[in-house]
């Protein structure tokens, strides 16, 4: 990260900071921050920020479980965080170093406590829903103007998928996102840990798999915006980013996001500090910087995800705070559900089924 500093005093501070070579290494999801914030953090604190990205919880988790990742701040999703805390991957936050903690939103803290009791190890960065992104023009062309674009039936009913296959469908390569949605579609408990109930989702997925062009968790942002595909089952903010990229490109592609009316998965990406972080002190500074109301608002305004920071809401642009796809209204919130991790045995069954769904074997 290069630094552009205007004043000489700041430059001197930087030289001093570099002499100490203080670094903070952050590992976050791809397309998940306003990069100006990174420069701002560097100029405010004089700490060198090294910012890497990933596109799946599995990659992050493997690094955490291998140990010695070298990162100071990482951003797992709640259910993954819970398991990594159990494995001893994170250190408890030092609340005395987080002066902005009061900005956090109680309603979100209550929900994240499900994964991290007492919110001792993590703070919420962003949260969102998993739902359906459509290229409205192409879907209407294929399925007609009354296509069920706000229903799970769009992606789990083979009759719809057969037609959509001609314009392209992508689905998250994350069984922990797709299987709960299938369960919801079947009218089951989406957080079911009953092996037989979960096995029942295989039938639905096998019926639609021939029509899914790819299971992938990051390429759909571009593919949807370019018009390469017409439907993506993905994360709310990603699809909204895709909508904006298409609008900027003025390529005639119009994207819409809907949380399924049957109910949508609500997930929480939590910032936490690995137990072996080289610079836990700097990590706390980064967390506190992110918890600042204006910084957090800048991040949300950029990536179109809701955050767990109540104080940031007054700085959010109307496009974000006023969009029910990002900050859902009461009725939608009541319809959201959460997910808890599988035990290792069930995880193996689920992954095996997922491989079968993806490869047909």
């Amino acid at each position, binding site marked *: 990260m290069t630094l552009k500093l205007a004043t000489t005093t700041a430059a001197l501070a930087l030289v001093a900071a570099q002499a100490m070579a203080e670094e903070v290494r952050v590992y976050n999801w791809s397309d998940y921050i306003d990069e100006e914030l990174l420069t701002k953090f560097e100029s405010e604190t004089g700490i060198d920020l090294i910012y890497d990205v990933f596109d799946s919880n*599995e990659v992050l988790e493997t690094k955490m*479980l291998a140990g010695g990742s070298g990162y100071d701040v990482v951003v797992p999703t709640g259910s993954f965080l819970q*398991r990594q805390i*159990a*494995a001893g991957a994170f250190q408890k936050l030092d609340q005395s170093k987080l002066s902005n903690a009061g900005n956090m939103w109680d309603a979100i803290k209550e929900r994240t406590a499900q994964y991290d009791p007492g919110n001792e190890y993590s703070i919420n960065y962003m949260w969102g829903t998993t739902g359906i992104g459509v290229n409205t023009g192409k879907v209407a062309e294929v399925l007609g103007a009354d296509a069920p674009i706000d229903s799970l039936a769009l992606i789990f009913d083979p009759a719809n998928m057969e037609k959509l296959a001609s314009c392209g469908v992508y689905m998250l390569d994350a069984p922990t996102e797709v299987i709960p949605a299938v369960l919801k579609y079947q009218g089951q408990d989406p957080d079911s840990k009953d092996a037989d109930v979960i096995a029942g989702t295989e039938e639905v997925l096998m019926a639609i798999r021939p029509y899914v062009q790819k299971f992938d968790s990051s390429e759909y942002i571009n593919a949807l915006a370019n018009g390469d595909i017409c439907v993506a089952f993905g994360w709310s903010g990603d699809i909204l980013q895709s909508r904006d990229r298409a609008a900027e490109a003025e390529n005639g592609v119009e994207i819409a996001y809907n949380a399924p009316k049957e109910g949508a998965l609500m997930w929480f990406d939590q910032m936490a500090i690995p137990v072996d972080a080289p610079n836990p002190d700097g990590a706390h500074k980064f967390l506190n910087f992110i918890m600042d109301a204006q910084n957090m608002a800048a991040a949300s305004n950029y990536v179109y995800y809701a955050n767990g920071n109540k104080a940031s809401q007054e700085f959010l642009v109307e496009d974000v705070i006023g969009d029910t796809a990002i900050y859902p209204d009461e009725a939608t919130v009541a319809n959201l559900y959460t997910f808890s991790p599988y035990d290792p045995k069930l995880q193996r069954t689920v992954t095996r089924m997922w491989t079968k769904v993806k490869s047909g*074997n």
Partner: protein
Amino acid sequence: MRRFTLIALPYLWLLGLFLVPFLIVLKISLSDLNLSIPPYMPQLDISAGWSGLMEFFSELDFENFVWLTEDDLYWKAYLSSLKIAVVATFLTLLVGYPVAYGMARAPSEWRPTLMMLVILPFWSSFLIRVYSWMGILSNEGFLNQFLLWTGIISEPLQIMNTTTAVYIGIVYTYLPFMILPIYSALEKMDDSLLEAAEDLGCSRLKAFWLITFPLSRAGMIAGCFLVFIPSIGEFVIPSLLGGSDTLMIGKVLWEEFFNNRDWPVASAVAVVLLMILVIPIILFQRNEQKQREAEG
């Protein structure tokens, strides 16, 4: 003493870069899954001394290898990888041979330039080159746009995210490894043999089959191994260009490691893959040795 050092160097290389990592993977493949850092047990506790070592060994078992035989996913993935590697190697040979032949027949002042052109792609990152293929092959990509423009097709061809795209990716990526050994075999060939054949009434085609082709065999075999061995365990190309139903062992390994967090089973898959590869590697070594002896 000097001689000893000369012999020791390659062995140290093998020991440090092959045997030690292999033993670590083998050890993990004999361990059990556990929720900890690292996510398997038992851990070797050196401070416990001899008894700790004995206890450590007593906890290792072949359970994970038995597991591999119980699910048909694994052997299907091995077979499918073998098939993809064999087909891709054959296609690479088909494309690579004429290129190498053309290079070897070209005027000698052109050859360094042609050689440069073959090597040039290595100057940019492998990942970027595979990503560019995504831009070429996708539904809205260059190839489909071009074909639609010429009127050859009326609907975009679905090449991206299929096994065809994987073949294209492998052939493209490994082509230089096929061209270079064949070229070096052809370049060394004595032209007077061809002249003699023609003097004796051999047609050019027949002379090619009777002289050039057999003499370039060693180069072809070397090229085929250089393409086949890395393509069988290929992960990047199938995951970027392939579709969901492209089953390759590299992807299965990834899933065991990342999705199941099951390092022991992932390591067992890797050990079996290595066992499968040992056969072609030994054959390759033999071929090299024979060639060296022939050149004497």
